[in-house]
Each structure stands twice: as C-alpha cells, then as structure tokens.
C-alpha cells in the first residue's frame, strides 16, 4: 500500500517552550485509508495534525525538525516543512484540508461558504460553481436538507449540519488529504454517527487522518491507529492490532482505561 504522507523524525517546539511538544515522530499515512491518532489530552496529537498542513505557521516562533513528506501519484515527494512562500502555503492547504473541533461556518450564506474556497482557486463560472456546491453538499448528505435555503446564513444551521457544511467546504476543493481535529467532540450522538458514516464513505476518494478523544470512534472508523503519549509516538499499527493485541504496555493501559 502506498503512503500519502510520511512523517519522519519530526520534532516540534512551541514558541518560548523549553521542551519540545513532539519528539522524533515517525508515522506513515496511507493513501485512501483512515489513520487515527489517539492519546490523552496534551499528548501532542493535535499539534502533530496541525503540523501536517502547517496551520501552526499562523503563529510565528515555533521550531521544528525532521521532515513531513507529501507524495503524489507518481511518487514525487515534497517536504512540506520547506515551504516558505505564501502561494505555496495556499497550494498545500488546498491539497491538505482541515476540519476543526468546533464547527466554523463563515459568516455568509450556505452557498458562499462552499463557493468561497472554490472562488479562491480562480473558479468564476456561475454554473460550474453551483454544480460543485451541489456535488459537495450531496457528498456530505446535506443537500436534501439545505437545497431550498442555499442562500440563507450558514450560522442558522444546527451544529451537526454546520460541521457537515465545513466538511463539504473542504472536499469541494478536491484535497488529497483531509485532517480531522476531533470533529465530533462538540456534536450529539446522532450527528456524530452521521459524520462517522461520512468519513467511511470519504476514504474511497481521500486520505484521512483523524485526531480523536473517543477510542470507540477510532476503533469504528480507522484502518490504522497511532497512540501518542507526552509527545512521543508509543505505538502505530493496524487498528485491530492496537485495540486487541497492543505490543506496548502503555497502549494497553490506555485502551483499557487504566489511565488517561
């Protein structure tokens, strides 16, 4: 199986912090699979995820070592840590999309929320825009619910709908990788289920990495699971292996709820 991203010996230190938040992480992310990152609060899982599209760079002063490779179909690779120019960042973030913990609808209509990113890529044709918006909304199973109020303010949607809109906004850009940062922790169980089912569908076409607090969620939806603790990657394997026969004692303790 081919890797979509490869994190090699990656260390990360926040601005002003003495000790690194991530120590020498090496983690492959396989194409069209769901990789979940689990671990107790403060273990660095979100930090790692946020490094994968360099969203940390909004806040200057952080330092990092190692490499994070993004691979294309032909096997060409790019170390995303080398990116320095604004337009390369924009390109990276269009290829590696991100969905956040809290739904973040933009203060505009449902239609514009999705069209916003598309317009940034230079798409201006109204019919094409509409088609893309419809397709993205269908992909997240939101179309039927919102097709009659596409031009209403997106902030009027329910939390679960808002989160699906945010996912639609990301997939409209046809990214290669989608990063989910605890996407269901602010949602009710039904909305959570809808999002999980969607992630299952999405992996046909996208490579997915998800950070989650919810171990059941990791076991339900992911193919691979990485367990992190205090900035170290303790164990990485097939999800069944991690949950049924973990090699490390720490992993087993966490999975069985002895700490964390």
């Amino acid at each position, binding site marked *: 199986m081919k890797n979509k991203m490869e994190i090699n010996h990656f260390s990360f230190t926040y601005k002003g912090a003495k000790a690194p938040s991530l120590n020498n992480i090496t983690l492959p992310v396989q194409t069209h699979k769901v990789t979940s990152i689990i671990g107790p609060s403060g273990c660095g899982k979100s930090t790692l995820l946020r490094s994968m599209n360099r*969203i940390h760079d*909004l806040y200057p002063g952080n330092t990092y070592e190692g490499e994070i490779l993004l691979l294309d179909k032909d096997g060409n690779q790019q170390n995303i840590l080398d990116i320095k120019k604004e337009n390369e960042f924009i*390109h990276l*973030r*269009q290829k590696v*999309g991100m969905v956040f913990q809290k739904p973040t609808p*933009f*203060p505009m209509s449902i239609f514009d929320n999705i069209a916003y990113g598309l317009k940034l890529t230079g798409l201006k044709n109204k019919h094409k825009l509409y088609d893309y918006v419809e397709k993205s909304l269908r992909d997240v199973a939101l179309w039927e619910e919102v097709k009659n109020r596409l031009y209403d303010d997106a902030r009027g949607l329910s939390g679960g709908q808002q989160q699906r809109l945010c996912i639609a906004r990301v997939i409209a850009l046809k990214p290669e990788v989608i990063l989910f940062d605890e996407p269901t922790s602010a949602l009710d169980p039904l909305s959570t289920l809808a999002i999980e089912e969607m992630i299952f569908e999405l992996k046909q076409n996208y490579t997915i990495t998800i950070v989650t607090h919810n171990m059941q969620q990791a076991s339900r939806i992911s193919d691979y699971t990485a367990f992190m603790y205090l900035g170290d990657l303790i164990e990485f394997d097939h999800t069944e292996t991690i949950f049924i026969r973990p090699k490390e004692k720490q992993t087993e303790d966490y999975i069985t709820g002895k700490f964390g």
Partner: protein
Amino acid sequence: MRLLVNKIAIALSSLTAILGLIFLGWILITLILKGSTALSPYIFTHDLVNNGIRNLLWGQFVLAGLASAIGIPVGLLAGIYLQEYGNHTRYADFIRDLSDVMMSAPSIVIGTFIYAIIVIPVGHTNGWAGIAALFVMMLPIVVRTTDDMLSLVPTELREAGIAIGAPKYHVIFHIILKAAKVGIMTGLILAFARIVGETAPLLYTSGSTIYMETSLSQTFPSMTVSIYNLATMPDEKLVALAWAAALILTIAVLALNLIGRFLIKDRRL
C-alpha cells in the same frame, strides 16, 4: 440579618438609580419645554444671522462627517493591525495603551493642542482645525472598538479560512470583518454620536460663525459652540434659540445611540 442587608442594598441601589433617572428626565423635560418654544420650520431654513440654525446644523455635521470620513478608515485599519497582525507584539500593546490614554484625554486638551499646531500658524479659527480636533477625539475610539470586536471573533474561524487556502488578508476582509460587522458598525455609530455633540474641541479650532460658510479654511459654523455663545446672550430670543438647538442636537445624538443599541440587541451569535 442577611435578609435585612439584602433589602437595604436593593433599596439603596434602586434609590440611586431613580435619582439618576430623575435628573435625566429633568434635563429632557427642561430641554423640551424651553427648546420647543423657539422650534419652528423657520429656524431650519435660516442661518444664525437671521435667527435660524441652518448654518449651524450644516457646520456641525460637516465637521463631524469629514472627521469620520478620515477617522473611520484610519481607525479601522489600525484596529485590524492591532488584532490581526501585530497582536501580542510590544509595539501593538504600546499603541493599544496609548489609545486608551487618548480616549480618556479631556477634550479641551485636544482642542488646545490643535489650536497650538493649526490655528496659531494659520492665524484664525478654521474648519480644518475643527475636523482635526474631532478626528483626534474619534480615532482612539474607533481603534479600540475595532480591536475589541475583532478579538471576539473565534480563532478557529481564522484558522478555518487559512486552512482552505485563503491568504491572510482575504480571511480578514472577507470572513473576520463580516463576523464582527455588527459590533464594529455599532461602535462606529457610537463614535460618531460621541463627536457630533462635542463642544470643547471645537471652541478654539473651528470657532463658530453666524453666517453660512462652505470654505473649510475659514471660521466654520458649529452648533455646539454657538449654543455655548448664545446661552450667554442677554437677548431672550437668542437664548431660546440655543435651547432649540440643544434639543435638536440631543435628539440627534439620542437617535444615533438608540440605533447603536438596537444593532447590539439585534446581533446574532
């Protein structure tokens, strides 16, 4: 015992609230009673030289309007800088503190300052000096309102914009400002309402005149300054006119404030 203390506290705070309201009502009633006697369509169509207030209304709103036309864009951009670009840098913190100090600077001090740097070199009071004084008054208010309102926009929204590949300036102008729109608009209206009723910054800068004036390099009519002047006149007719002008100005400022409040109440999220 605790119940008693509670009752005393409620009684005292209610009493002081009522006291405040009594004075406010008193002012309003006096204004209406004294102001309405001279109030007639005539005063809106004649200048002060003919016992009207047309030139004063014009002057006051031109001064405040032009001060806003410069102060709003400059203040908005400065506020955006403070919150979105320079946040947590020492320079931004310094500017922020400076704005706070400027906001509480007595307005007569600002008037005197402009008098020293513009009116004295020019040799006489003029409209530009009045605009400059109002601009200096307004700027820190706009800067701090913009700064505060932008700080209420959740960080996630900025990150979400960046994460779908938008350049930072685009996120600020198309997403963040929209999210803070109502709050900023309210702040701008209140800032305008604040300067449109000011007297002290205009006293030595624009001065005031009884004639219609369209050139800003001349002494410019100002309603507030003229109210001050008219109120000390021996002629009772002119004093009544001052009351009418005061009533009109109060109504205008009150209306602006109510619009501002209404916007705050109406805001969603």
